[in-house]
């Protein structure tokens, strides 16, 4: 079991390396550098950066070196002008931000504003949103699935199944857009896209939108596995010995029906983390997704690379955790 885990952990290294390498190559293959993007030109019309300044900037960030050298520098580190070795990504240095002079990618991702606790940083904003979405998805999805199963073939069941099918087949960002467009055309009194995120209530709409697909999947899976468990022999036995219906449902059915739902949690969380960035942009949410889209527009290479790597690492890590959890839950896997 431990061996399996260690082996999987080692496999994560080439995977993440390839992710960084592909992203690095794609970014540097794109024509134009970080200081002559269209936005830059739009911000300062008629004024293009003079050659001398550009040269200094390119030299400062080593963009004048050959590509392989830049890659090695980013990944492992390189000597600076004074001959001192500066460590790169493997030491945990994510590099400087091109857009905000003097700021590092690390600080932009993990740094909280002055005097705020660490969970106010971009990265943890995204994590918190994903966790909240997962929570809402479970709290709504499981009871909905159970209700649908208990009232099988009634209009309640049909309604829940229909909504669940909708949630699975239509991606959450389309649902978010429909929600925003309907709320706006209905002329609701509150702002759908809030100005401040310090109020916990404004988190709910983005979290529901983000977690809608997971909610639907949870409801459908719970319903299916409840229906299976309801026909089981031990439920008949429980009824025969005269247990209260409530006890049968909660202690006998639900407990067994939830096992497949637990296995859904990991992939769902990975999906929520990776899928958040369109939702974040839609709601102007100050998380990692918005940072990513901004940095892509401004060609802030180190920040793009860091964010891509972070997303990939999160997804890999969650998948690893899921495999580990399976191993704990299912002895058949542990034996391998």
């Amino acid at each position, binding site marked *: 079991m431990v061996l399996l885990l260690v082996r999987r952990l080692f496999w994560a290294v080439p995977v993440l390396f390839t992710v960084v390498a592909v992203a690095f190559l*794609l970014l540097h293959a794109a024509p134009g550098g970080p200081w002559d993007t269209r936005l830059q030109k739009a911000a300062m019309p008629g004024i293009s950066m003079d050659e001398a300044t550009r040269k200094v900037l390119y030299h400062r960030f080593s963009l004048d070196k050959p590509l392989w050298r830049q890659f090695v520098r980013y990944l492992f580190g390189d000597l600076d002008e004074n001959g001192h070795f500066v460590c790169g990504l493997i030491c945990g240095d994510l590099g400087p931000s091109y857009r905000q002079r003097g700021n590092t990618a690390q600080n932009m991702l993990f740094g909280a504003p002055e005097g705020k606790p660490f969970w106010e940083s971009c990265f943890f904003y995204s994590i918190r949103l994903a966790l909240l979405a997962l929570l809402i998805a479970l709290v709504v999805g499981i009871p909905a699935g159970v209700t649908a199963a208990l009232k099988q073939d009634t209009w309640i069941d049909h309604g829940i199944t229909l909504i669940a*099918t909708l949630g699975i*087949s239509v991606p959450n960002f*389309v649902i978010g857009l429909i929600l925003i*467009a309907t709320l706006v*055309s209905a002329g609701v009194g509150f702002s759908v896209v809030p100005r401040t995120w310090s109020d916990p209530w404004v988190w709910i709409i983005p979290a529901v939108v983000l977690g809608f697909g997971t909610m639907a999947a949870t409801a459908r899976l719970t319903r299916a596995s409840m229906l299976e468990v309801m026909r089981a022999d031990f439920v008949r036995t429980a009824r025969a010995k005269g247990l209260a219906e409530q006890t049968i449902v909660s202690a006998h059915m639900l407990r067994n029906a939830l096992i497949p739902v637990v296995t859904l949690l990991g992939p769902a969380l990975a999906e929520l983390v990776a899928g958040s960035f*369109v939702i974040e942009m839609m709601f102007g949410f100050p998380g990692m997704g918005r940072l990513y*889209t901004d940095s892509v527009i401004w060609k802030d290479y180190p920040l793009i690379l860091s964010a*891509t790597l972070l*997303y990939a690492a999160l997804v890999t890590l969650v998948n690893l955790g899921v495999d580990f959890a399976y191993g704990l839950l299912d002895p058949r896997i542990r034996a391998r």
Partner: protein
Amino acid sequence: MTRFAQPKREEPGAPALSQPSHGLWTDVWHRLVRRKRAVFGLAVIAFFALVAVLAPVLAPHDPLQLGFGHTFLPPSWVKESATGRVGDPQFLLGTDTAGRDILSRLIYGTRASMFIGLSTTPIVAVVGTLIGLGAGYAGGRQGNLIMRVTDVFYAFPAIMFYVLITLTLRETAFGKWMNGLATLLLALVLIGWVGLARLTCSAVLSIKESQFVEAARSIGASNRRIVARHVLPNCLSLIVIWMAFAIPRMIMIEAVLGYLGIGLIPVVDSSQSFFVTTWGGLFLDGRMAINTHPIMLLAPTLCVALVGMAFAFVGDALRDVLDPRMRNLI
């Protein structure tokens, strides 16, 4: 409720034994059309496909025709909009910032989006199937290596890959070719094959061990013949089901990229490109006008949602008809 003698529920549409036998796909079709949801899905898909094909006939206006006398009109049923304008029955869904007819743009957008979904999926399916077949049938070290490469692609956050690749190619000659359509198709094909390759590979691994393959080998069939005649046909239902779910996914990815403003390059001159706009492009237009003109966002999103649901219904039904065991896989 007694739980003792449960009559087996007849599968709806299961052919009676007295009927003459048909081929597999005829049979699948007959069972499919007996499912209400599948028929609904097929009808919706047929409707949108028809709209796509007949776009020039159906569109009431030229989707690129600017009209400065009637910009930002609300839908025709609105008496007075937020901007104080009255709907014109000539423009059923109103007009956008440049006075272009929204309904016509929606119809032309349908054409492009349906084309993207329906054209990329077969290409991706062929690539994915070939890789999966190769890796699964070769097995051993080579097969393992191929699957490890697939794993790497699988871990790559797909949407970020699309964003990166479109941004890379956007300013190049290739990126401007067909208004960015070529780039989009390339991006979709480059990463779309991964899921199918994994599915096919695991299917092949189990088919390869079956007795009919052993029998074929014992009578001296070549590898090529075994793959073509015995392995591939048994993967076919998997591939068909996967395709039903892949088509809407391709449409969605285009829509996301369009919404982010990195989809197809907007067309202003009809001689420039075959495609005027896509659903993704309409999303972007709608996003800009969300406060005054929510219909511009609502109309394309509802189309996307409807098509997504239709394909999901058909895919679900196909899976139930072809191979219910695949319920946990796709």
